[in-house]
């Protein structure tokens, strides 16, 4: 699942910068990410929302339509629908038609599993729908290692169906990793072959992404390659504004170059919880729930969290850096889930300040915040190059097994004198 802020064109002459107006937030989001379900047919290693199994509390069709009514009233231009895999919801196509009939455009992310020739024709006939096919390798080998066996073929079949149906400019959406950054030209060729537009986004340490971030996030020299590639391709490649931390290499990349969390974007999750951004599913960034009286509009307008995010950013430890104006300290979620302070450098700071902080973190990874929910399949396939040899030992700081919530032993939690 990925999110984006819209591509911006040049403002009318003489105008203030759009980004300056956005820093203080808007009465309604421009677009928002809406994850319709945690259910997914895949188990991608880096899933932002730790998806897999449906949550029994997910919004009903009627509740989802009420959200759309609210978005229409607030004049939200469009929603980025994701999940999980949104198309596995039985009412997905109904909700899609309902949204576009109510003047809320829909951009949805899919692994392609339900994009049959028939569905592709239906999508091609709706001007208010845009489709993002997720693919994280230009070859099956690189893609399937992250997204699972068969997922490359599924995505390519979906792209072929969309292309055959006459749909143009749908998106080929790629999360940039250590393994696919050398494939950028191949991705571009693949997108061109199907009349699609390439969209590159940043790997974030959110959801299951936190578990694989250390081994998948781009190496420093790859970040430079990616930046140069993005500068060379300019407006022809979309980024959902997700690489603004790379702007500190030199010229700013196209886009707002602003963290839009709670200002111009947010996330509604499958159970109606509203978070500041799709990469920050954690209580710390939870603004409210749309099921409460007042609905989404009240959360957006009144939430204390969002009010705080709408203050101009404080550079903190970055304030004295010459590049702060271009990178703005990077991504809040990336800092949070790697255990770095929010008012300091991004873990992938191109000046290397993030790496220094990462190296200085406590060895105890238990101190790093964990995402609030986990809907992963309970039987996900083994990851990585092969089995990992485990030697079971006791943690040296514990003299007894940890006490669980269901432990009813009367002496649970009591520490007894040893050898007594």
């Amino acid at each position, binding site marked *: 699942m990925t999110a984006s802020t819209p*591509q911006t*064109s040049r*403002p*009318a*002459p003489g105008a203030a910068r759009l980004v300056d107006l956005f820093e203080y937030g*808007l009465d309604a989001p421009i677009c928002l990410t809406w994850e319709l379900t945690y259910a997914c047919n895949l188990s991608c290693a880096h899933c932002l929302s730790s998806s897999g199994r449906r949550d029994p509390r997910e919004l009903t069709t009627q509740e989802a339509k009420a959200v759309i009514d609210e978005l229409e009233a607030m*004049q939200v*231009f*469009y929603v980025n629908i994701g999940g999980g895999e949104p198309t596995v919801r039985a009412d997905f196509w109904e909700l899609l038609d309902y949204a576009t009939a109510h003047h809320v455009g829909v951009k949805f992310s899919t692994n392609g599993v339900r994009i049959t020739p028939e569905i592709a024709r239906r999508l091609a006939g709706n001007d208010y729908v845009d489709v993002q096919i997720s693919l994280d390798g230009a070859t099956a080998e690189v893609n399937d290692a992250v997204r699972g066996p068969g997922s490359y073929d599924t995505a390519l079949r979906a792209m072929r169906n969309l292309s055959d149906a006459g749909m143009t400019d749908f998106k080929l959406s790629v999360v940039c990793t250590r393994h696919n950054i050398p494939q950028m030209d191949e991705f571009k060729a693949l997108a061109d072959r199907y009349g699609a537009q390439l969209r590159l986004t940043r790997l974030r340490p959110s959801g299951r992404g936190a578990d694989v971030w250390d081994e998948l996030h781009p190496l420093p020299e790859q970040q430079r390659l990616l930046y140069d590639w993005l500068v060379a391709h300019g407006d022809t490649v979309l980024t959902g504004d997700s690489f603004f931390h790379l702007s500190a290499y030199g010229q700013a990349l196209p886009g707002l170059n602003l963290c839009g969390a709670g200002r111009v974007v947010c996330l509604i999750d499958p159970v109606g919880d509203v978070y500041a951004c799709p990469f920050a599913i954690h209580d710390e960034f939870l603004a409210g729930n749309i099921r409460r009286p007042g609905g989404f509009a009240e959360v957006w307008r009144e939430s204390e969290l969002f009010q705080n995010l709408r203050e101009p950013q404080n550079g903190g430890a970055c304030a004295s850096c010459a590049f702060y104006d271009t990178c703005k300290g990077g991504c809040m979620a990336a800092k949070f889930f790697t255990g770095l302070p929010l008012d300091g450098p991004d873990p992938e700071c191109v000046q290397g300040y993030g790496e220094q902080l990462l190296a200085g973190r406590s060895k105890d990874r238990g101190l790093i915040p964990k995402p609030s929910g986990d809907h992963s399949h309970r039987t996900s396939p083994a990851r990585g190059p092969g089995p990992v040899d485990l030697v079971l030992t006791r943690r040296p700081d514990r003299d007894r097994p940890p006490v669980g919530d269901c432990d009813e032993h009367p002496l649970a939690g009591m520490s007894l004198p040893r050898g007594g």
Partner: protein
Amino acid sequence: MTAPHLDRAWDLHPQVSVRPEPFGALLYHFGTRKLTFLKDRVLLAVVQALAAAPTARAACAAAGVDDKDMPRYEKALAALHRSSMVVERNRLP
């Protein structure tokens, strides 16, 4: 693409959605998927008046733009035309 003359009839592109904001308005084009903004309420009034006005100049007048401000609004309309937010009426691209 040169902008049509101000004495012709203009309109918002049919795929453009306009959202008034305290500072002016946000415009989103569902065809190009581009976002832009209007920096003041008068320009918003001009854009909203285009559809019913016989010419773009008449729309400006209806929104209260006086002659000395006209060049500024002509420039703004031309910029909106370049990004296909507004089009010449009856000559859709």
